[in-house]
């Protein structure tokens, strides 16, 4: 059996959850490959945790279907689903030792003691907590408790492991180390992982693919690179990584859209379906700064602005440029580029091909505040 075969595929189809007038999940569909590391990413209240609770069986769907390994499990209660869950608050049983906690799911499954002891030792080994089997949870640090909780959730070899912001209560350094540990364990187990977080960096570090949630819907599913390079909505573009968005009076000609911003005209490839207001999205490393004298090369756009912040980062510099219409652009430049200081008047330049034309949606701005 190869590692990947141990994970189960998950199919969420048209999942909807309503609480009275409030729609927590709005027709969500998602396919997760066997053994995949899928992260559900989004701001709080976006439906990512609801989705996890639905898969775990803690929350019933109003409508829709849910299948693990090809079989619908909508009708199964949580305790019959055989899915591992790791909670943000650890949820270790305080009256049991670490060993007893990890053995708990095996005892429930009627496993005899020698086999149980072997499995527990293996799971504790995997999370590097083998020396703590006789301690009580209260005697452990947060990071240690979460590792025990992880061991308890994988000890019964579930085909699917759900993790609900498992590192949310830990400090940054510990979090970064545990991220790598989780990645390693995922590789070794081959189990399908579904991971909930609101931290985009964590999502990029861990995931094979990321599903970006917003207001009870999935905005986009893809690899970290796809989401960063090819966002399909402004919300995704703003949630993943830094970006500059430009708005202005739009005109479409052929397969090109041009925007007029404070008297200056820029162009972007593509056009939007009728009636949608366009936004031009630019990643900081695609932008460069130049003094107004420098001639423009073909296929480049240029906007005039003033440097309002200049930060030296060691590996390069980061600038904030206030444009004439008042919007702020974020620029990252390499060390070789000529330095600028606060107050300098500069031209903000980029290649037309590097600009991304997206539909403006006020949803994106709402959640960024």
């Amino acid at each position, binding site marked *: 059996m190869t590692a990947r075969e141990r994970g189960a595929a998950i199919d969420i189809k048209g999942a909807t959850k309503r609480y009275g007038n409030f729609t927590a999940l709005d027709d969500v569909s998602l396919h997760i490959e066997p053994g995949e590391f899928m992260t559900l990413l989004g701001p709080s209240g976006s439906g990512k945790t609801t989705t996890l609770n639905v898969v775990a069986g803690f929350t019933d769907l109003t409508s829709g279907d849910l299948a693990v390994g090809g079989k619908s499990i909508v009708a199964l*209660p949580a305790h019959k689903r055989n899915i591992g869950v790791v909670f943000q608050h650890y949820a270790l049983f305080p009256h049991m030792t670490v060993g007893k906690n990890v053995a708990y799911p095996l005892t429930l499954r009627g496993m005899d003691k020698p086999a149980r002891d072997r499995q527990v030792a293996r799971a504790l080994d995997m999370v590097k907590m083998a020396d703590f089997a006789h301690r009580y949870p209260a005697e452990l640090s947060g990071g240690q408790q979460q590792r025990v909780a992880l061991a308890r*959730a994988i000890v019964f070899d579930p085909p699917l492991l759900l993790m609900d912001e498992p590192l949310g209560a830990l400090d940054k350094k510990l979090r970064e180390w545990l991220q790598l540990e989780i990645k390693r364990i995922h590789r070794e187990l081959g189990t399908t992982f579904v991971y909930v977080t609101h931290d985009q960096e964590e999502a990029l570090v861990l995931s094979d693919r990321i599903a970006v949630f917003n207001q009870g819907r999935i905005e986009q599913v893809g690899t970290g690179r796809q989401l960063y390079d090819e966002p399909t909505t402004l919300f995704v573009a703003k949630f993943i990584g830094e970006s500059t968005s430009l708005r202005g009076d739009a005109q479409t000609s052929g397969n090109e859209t041009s925007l007029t911003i404070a008297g200056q005209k820029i162009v972007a490839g593509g056009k939007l379906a009728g009636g949608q207001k366009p936004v031009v999205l630019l990643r900081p490393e695609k932008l460069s700064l130049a003094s107004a004298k420098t001639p423009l090369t073909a296929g480049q756009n240029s906007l005039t602005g003033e440097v309002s912040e200049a930060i030296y980062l060691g590996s390069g510099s980061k600038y904030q440029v206030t444009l004439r219409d008042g919007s702020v652009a974020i620029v990252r430049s390499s060390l070789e580029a000529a330095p600028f200081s606060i107050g300098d008047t500069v031209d903000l330049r980029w290649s037309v091909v590097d600009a991304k034309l997206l539909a403006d949606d006020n949803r994106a701005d709402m959640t960024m505040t």
Partner: protein
Amino acid sequence: MRLAPFRILLGLFCLLVAVWLVMPTLVIIPMSFNEKKSLAFPPSGFSWQWYANFFTNPDWLSSFFNSLRVAGLVAVAATLIGTLASLGLSRMKHAGAGLLRAILITPMIVPGVVLAIGIYAVYLDYQLVGTTTGFVIAHTMLAIPFVIIAVSASLEVFDVRLETAAASLGADRFTTFRTVTLPLIAPGILSGLLFAFVTSFDEIIVALFITSPYLKTLPVQIFTSITRDADPTVTAVGTIIFIATTLIISAGLIISSKSTRS
């Protein structure tokens, strides 16, 4: 240092209050070893005769065992009902829970005499006066609030999310209760049980109303004995009960303080 005289005064005052609170109980102990058949204080001489009388006189012994039997049954019944009620109340989400809790606690607040009259009136109709059933029902009612308070305190610090975790690991609701909830609220249940036992064991007001010559509890026997003749056996009984209840209640307090700390 300037406050020293004030501090000494405060200490003396506290000591006085402490003596005042404990003295009536402690007076009983030397009196129980009195040589003469009198309740005079200070006692004269030393003898174990009143203890001997308690353990040989059938009136005293039977009332003692009546009390043990009633209190034992009450402890079990009140703990069962009170624990279930606490669990239900802790899971109720709407506003009715507060009102329901208040109603369940009322037997502790309503004056004993008022309850006793009501119970007596009802018992006359149903021939429950002077029966073990009658005693157990009345005392259980009085003991339930103590169980609810003790168990609710335990549930207050119990993390319900542990039950969700148990479900995810494969435990059905009953198994979850047995392996996770019950062990974690056990200290509260145990201290509720002890308080329920003691509540019944030393209850006198209701007992005086519903007693009969055929079924007397120990407090009733003490009361009738001391009003009929000044039998110093009551001081020996008092000492025994004092020591026993002190032990039980301290055990209860220790257990419940342990549970809220963890």
